């Protein structure tokens, strides 16, 4: 059987193998060279353009126009670099300096480019657009983001919702609340964090969301209620301790650690005595409340609750008390 092996097969294999290896080596070296060259180019551009951007960040009102004119006069590659530089800087700062940088982004043509790409075929690009819109907040950003929040790609919707966190207009808040629903394709943590970022403007909508039909909305609202501490939400939150969905109960209890509500104590007590993960969460909530409200409940827990629940309640063990 071994004589069935034609020698030419071997030479062919070796030849192919050699070609492949050489090809890969070339690829390795080329990739690295290209990358290094790109880095050097960027460093060059940086040296020239960074001072301009930094100057713009502290520019007085009467100096701004001149600086923006200089930006506009740059060539395409330079303007792209300015856009990149500004995007990175905007992640770290707010206030007047940030406003200046946004004006620079506009002048460099970044904002118009981003807006133009909002309906790109590629979902990755659309998601990048959503991210940039949140950062740059050009004219019309909110409307575009609301559109992207209904994009067929869940990736794009998620980024859009996250970006909407930077806007506190009612339309933005409503859209974020809707994204909390189950099956929205947007992770709860993203939508809830956006809601949290919208902060005080959310106000009454939290109370309404706490009573929504969708368990996902209730859960998200419950989770942020304790952190937002909006007035009028206390009772609704307390009621969610007995919600039919476990995840909603857990979210409510977590919030109650931040925002104690006396009306919730009885429900928390019985959840604690029932034990399990929910019981432990209930115990943690009770511990965070004023002792005068919870003394009885804690005494009951000390007496009969599961070990895990007693631990969550911070109670010393029987041996320790002895």
């Amino acid at each position, binding site marked *: 059987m*071994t004589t069935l092996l034609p020698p030419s097969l071997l030479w062919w294999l070796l030849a192919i193998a050699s070609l492949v*290896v050489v090809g890969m080596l070339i*690829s390795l070296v080329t*990739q*690295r060279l290209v990358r290094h060259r790109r880095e050097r180019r960027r460093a060059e551009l940086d040296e020239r353009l960074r001072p301009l951007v930094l100057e713009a960040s502290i520019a007085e009102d009467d100096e701004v126009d001149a600086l923006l004119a200089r930006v506009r006069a740059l060539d395409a590659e330079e303007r792209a670099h300015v856009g990149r530089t500004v995007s990175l800087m905007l992640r770290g700062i707010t206030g007047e300096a940030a406003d200046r940088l946004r004006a620079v982004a506009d002048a460099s043509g970044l904002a118009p480019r981003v807006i133009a790409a909002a309906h790109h075929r590629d979902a990755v690009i659309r998601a990048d657009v959503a991210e940039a819109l949140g950062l740059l907040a050009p004219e019309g950003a909110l409307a575009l983001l609301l559109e992207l929040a209904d994009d067929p790609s869940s990736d794009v919707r998620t980024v859009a919702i996250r970006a909407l966190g930077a806007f506190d207009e009612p339309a933005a808040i409503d859209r974020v609340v809707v994204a909390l629903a189950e099956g929205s394709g947007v992770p709860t*943590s993203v939508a809830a964090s956006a809601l949290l970022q919208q902060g005080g403007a959310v106000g009454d909508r939290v109370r309404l969301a706490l009573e929504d039909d969708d368990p996902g909305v209730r859960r998200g609202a419950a989770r942020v209620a304790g952190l937002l501490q909006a007035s009028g939400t206390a009772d609704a939150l307390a009621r969610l301790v007995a919600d039919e969905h476990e995840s909603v109960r857990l979210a409510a209890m977590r919030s109650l650690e931040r925002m104690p509500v006396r009306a919730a104590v009885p429900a928390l007590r019985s959840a604690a005595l029932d034990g399990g993960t929910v019981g432990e969460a209930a115990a943690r909530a009770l511990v965070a409340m004023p002792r005068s409200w919870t003394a009885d409940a804690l005494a009951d827990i000390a007496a009969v609750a599961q*070990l895990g629940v007693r*631990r969550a309640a911070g109670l010393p*063990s029987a041996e320790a008390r002895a």
Partner: protein
Amino acid sequence: MSWLHDTLEAIFAVIAWPAAAYFVLANTSMLLLVLLAARHFARYLRRSEHRGEDAMAASPLSLGVSVIVPAYNEAAVILTSVRSVLDLRYPDHEVIVVNDGSKDDTMRLLKEGFALVPDERDVPGRIPVRGALRGVWRSPDPAVPLLVVDKENSGRSDSVNLGLDLASKELVVMVDADSILEPDALLSVSKPFADDPERVVATGGVVRIVNNSRVQAGRIVDIRMPKELITRIQVVEYLRAFLLGRTAWSDLNALILISGAFGMFRRDVLIDVGGLDADSIGEDFELVMRIQRWIRHGHRESRVEFVAEPVSWTEAPSTLKVLARQRRRWHRGLWEVLWKYRSMLLNPRYGRVGMLALPYYWLFELFAPLIELVGIVLVVLGLLVGAVHPGMALLLLIVAYVYGTIVTLAAVVVEEASFHRYERWRDMGTTLWAVVAESLGYRQLTAIWRIQGWWAGLTNRTQVWGEMTRTGFAGATDASDAVMPGASATGGQPDRRD
């Protein structure tokens, strides 16, 4: 000697082509995994602009993480290590150090370094733990969420289980005291849970080799290739097996191993399956297999995912002796777990795990060293007595080693295109030489060790655990007892637990 000649000729007549086919299949499978991983990275890196890690790092709504750190005789690094874990960038995490009956100053250093006070709360006891508990301590400072558990020595798994029992957050991650973590490690590895909380139950991150890199205050500040050839070859192995292999298996939804050096789990699921198996050598492998079985028995939507971002850096063996011990243990662990879960093999009930991953591991990981070594012996003998056609011998060489080297080279190219962590040209040179050198003795040696480990497992000999000498990160690097299934001769997947 003509009987030898005739026997060998007869053997070759039967096995030559099947053997060639085996190696072609093995290397092609690995190549497919490499290509799959390359596609994953391409997509992953394109999305880096909008992944939102900053938002996640800043959000108080992120799922809480309990970091469990089992520690045995880690006095040289424990304080730096715990500090660096406490300083990880994450909005809500606690650290639980479990002292596994250290004979050195580990416990004293912790008590003094963090001014620990006794924690007198109950121990829930949800998971049976063998080592006797000596005491639980905590930091009195509310800004330092640290718990230290002191117990008798009973092994890493047992210690982790005790830490698991005391953990209070939704997610749990196990980290070795000597691992160096990236500052965003918790963010990266918890992201799949945040993105898909209903389904993801376990994630693993990439483990890379730290030898010879500069470390400061528990963080890596300058990445360098290791000095010794055998360690450099391991870097290449890890790239192929960890970075690429696991990424691909994760995409196929057939990931059966997460490195013990950095695996994150949902706490309720981990408690549900009973924690780690303290008797198993391949405990991390065993755990993920158990979780995969748990998934198919009533939680079919759940998944185990792999995160491509490097999260953990660990010391690899730099001497043959320690490497040998490690590979023996890995292969023995591989054997024991594969055998334990043999009912899942080629069982459609277990989906891709049973139909794809397990056959791959049986065929191209477990049996590989045996086939490779037997093959070498037969071919060499055959050439000596003229019983094998030199062309056939050359063919086998090509499909086994040359093809294998090409696949490994492909892995290096993918790494260059995606993460390119080693920036020096000199490092590229040493990497390339390591790729070639792997087939010039390293693979054969590891094959011998793996067979030894397998034999020890078959004959059920008790293993001698190694001791770990730690000289801090500046000094020589001797790896501890890693417990993961080893690299296959055809270029497979070592797994680490360190």
